[in-house]
């Protein structure tokens, strides 16, 4: 066999066949995750978006120290103040991680290097969840520092009025917000649409839902089984009962899982231009 192929009639074409015939290892998931993480930090806008988490935590902490009365210089106040910017920034980070592939057209390169789009999307999802958890822990640390300083300045004893379970509720609440941003990114594949979509979800819909619940008794009873945002923000207050978890799961499936599944289905089939 080898003597036959090495016969003298070697055209230019045949030289190639022997140039190399290596089988390459598939690209491991950790490589894709590493690259996608890098892509979230390696532009000015990406870098400042990440930096804004720390900056906003510091500003929120400073605001509590300056403006909150002495008896409210407690850890709960600091955590609450820091949590507000977090519920906006994290979903935006999650949405942009997906939409930039389309808005900036980098998907042309990304999906050529890694043809399995689902692996890229999963890598981005894991990365954003890790960023979310890290951000909240950093924010809580900044808040803790603020709590020590604030109570010292106010001359009151430092109060650590937050339990581990409350921290977990905050993580869960922010985590679901982040997933909502990610879902909108996958669904719209357009940065502006995803961000507007998130503000509609987090600000416009709750107002309408609350108005309707105030005006219509039947909706006030049904709200928890319809309004995901109502359940999601409920997490920040903690103390969920079995029924709370059930309504969270039901609305989460409808608002989060279904659109995410539909969006993924479209991402896998759509044309990348």
């Amino acid at each position, binding site marked *: 066999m080898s003597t036959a192929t090495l016969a003298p009639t070697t*055209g*230019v*074409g045949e*030289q*190639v*066949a*022997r*140039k*190399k015939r*290596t*089988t*390459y*290892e*598939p*690209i491991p998931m950790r*490589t*894709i995750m*590493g*690259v996608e993480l*890098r*892509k979230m930090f*390696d*532009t*000015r*806008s*990406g870098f400042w978006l990440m930096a804004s988490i720390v900056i906003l935590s510091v500003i929120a902490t400073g605001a509590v120290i300056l403006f909150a009365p002495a008896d409210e210089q407690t850890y709960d106040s600091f955590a609450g103040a820091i949590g507000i910017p977090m519920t906006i920034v994290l979903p935006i980070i999650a949405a942009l991680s997906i939409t*930039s592939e389309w808005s*900036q*057209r*980098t998907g*042309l*390169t990304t*999906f*050529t*290097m*890694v*043809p*399995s789009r689902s692996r890229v999307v999963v890598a981005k999802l894991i990365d954003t969840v890790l960023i979310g958890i890290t951000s909240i822990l950093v924010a809580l640390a900044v808040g803790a520092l603020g709590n020590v300083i604030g109570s010292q300045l106010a001359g009151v004893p430092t109060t650590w009025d937050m339990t581990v379970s409350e921290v977990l509720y905050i993580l869960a609440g922010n985590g679901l917000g982040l997933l909502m941003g990610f879902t909108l990114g996958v669904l719209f594949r357009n940065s502006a649409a995803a961000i507007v979509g998130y503000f509609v979800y987090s600000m416009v819909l709750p107002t309408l839902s609350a108005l309707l619940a105030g005006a219509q008794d039947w909706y006030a009873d049904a709200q928890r089984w319809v309004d995901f945002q109502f359940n999601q923000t409920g997490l920040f207050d903690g103390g969920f009962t079995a029924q709370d978890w059930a309504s969270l799961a039901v609305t989460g499936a409808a608002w989060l899982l279904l659109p995410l599944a539909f969006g993924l289905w479209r991402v896998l*089939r759509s*044309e*990348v*231009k």
Partner: protein
Amino acid sequence: MINVSHLSKTYGAFRAVDDVTFTAHPGRVTGFLGPNGAGKSTTMRIMVGLTPSSSGEATILGRHYSDLPNPGREVGVLLDASAQHAGRTGREILTIAQRTMRMPKGRVEDMLALVSLTDEEAGRRVRDYSLGMRQRLGIAAALIGDPEVLILDEPANGLDPAGIRWMRDLLRGFANHGGTVLLSSHLLHEIEVIADDIVVIGQGRVVAQGTKHELLEAAGTYVRAADHAALAAALNAAGHHTEQSDQGLRTEATTDEVGTVALAAGIALRELRPADGAGLEEMFLALTADTQRDDTTDTNAGAAA
């Protein structure tokens, strides 16, 4: 080796790619020529799995692109040099490719040197790149995985004449080392300069393909004589069709045949030569005229040639 077999893509009633079949061979540069909107880019996007085909298939090195375990190591792709995050530096874009393909770190600097981007340019953000610099960066990204096959969509766009020459030499070297190159262009001149084989596409269909030699040969012979009427009669009698062209005659007969006929008929010739790419160019212009879009680029092509 790239094999495209009966590939079609329809958007509603519109057939963007219509039963396209061709092969790009190793050791050769294959030019994919057609006016804007002819279906070149769509065909290339289908090859690398970015666009699903409606029917037919494309294989690269015997496999579907999506089945390649680490595609960048086997196929270098440049589809649109401007499709990059404008806020990334050139070096960062190459680093992302190098890490994704799991190439050694030094590969980034090697590629920057290969495409002559300076250290300072590599540190600049891509929004500040000229189109020519973006093309060089895109070629660097395509080559970073040391692939066997190159698929390049309009890579010469935005390059100056020296840049086009540089790219021709680069691709020639790549093919001479046994690589397969497929590059597209809407400019006949570019393809003539760079390609060995040519596939001409218009309105989604392959309208001609063959080696550059064959296609240019098919253009026939240009001849001028003292007595055109007598020469035309003699050629027609010998079974060759002729037509008036500029100052002389065009015929599909070879220069040898025309010479022999003229000698036998005793007609003095003033000029006798292959008709160059005239036939190919006319076919190409006819294609472009149909799409009514390329008036300016045609003029450029003519001027450049």
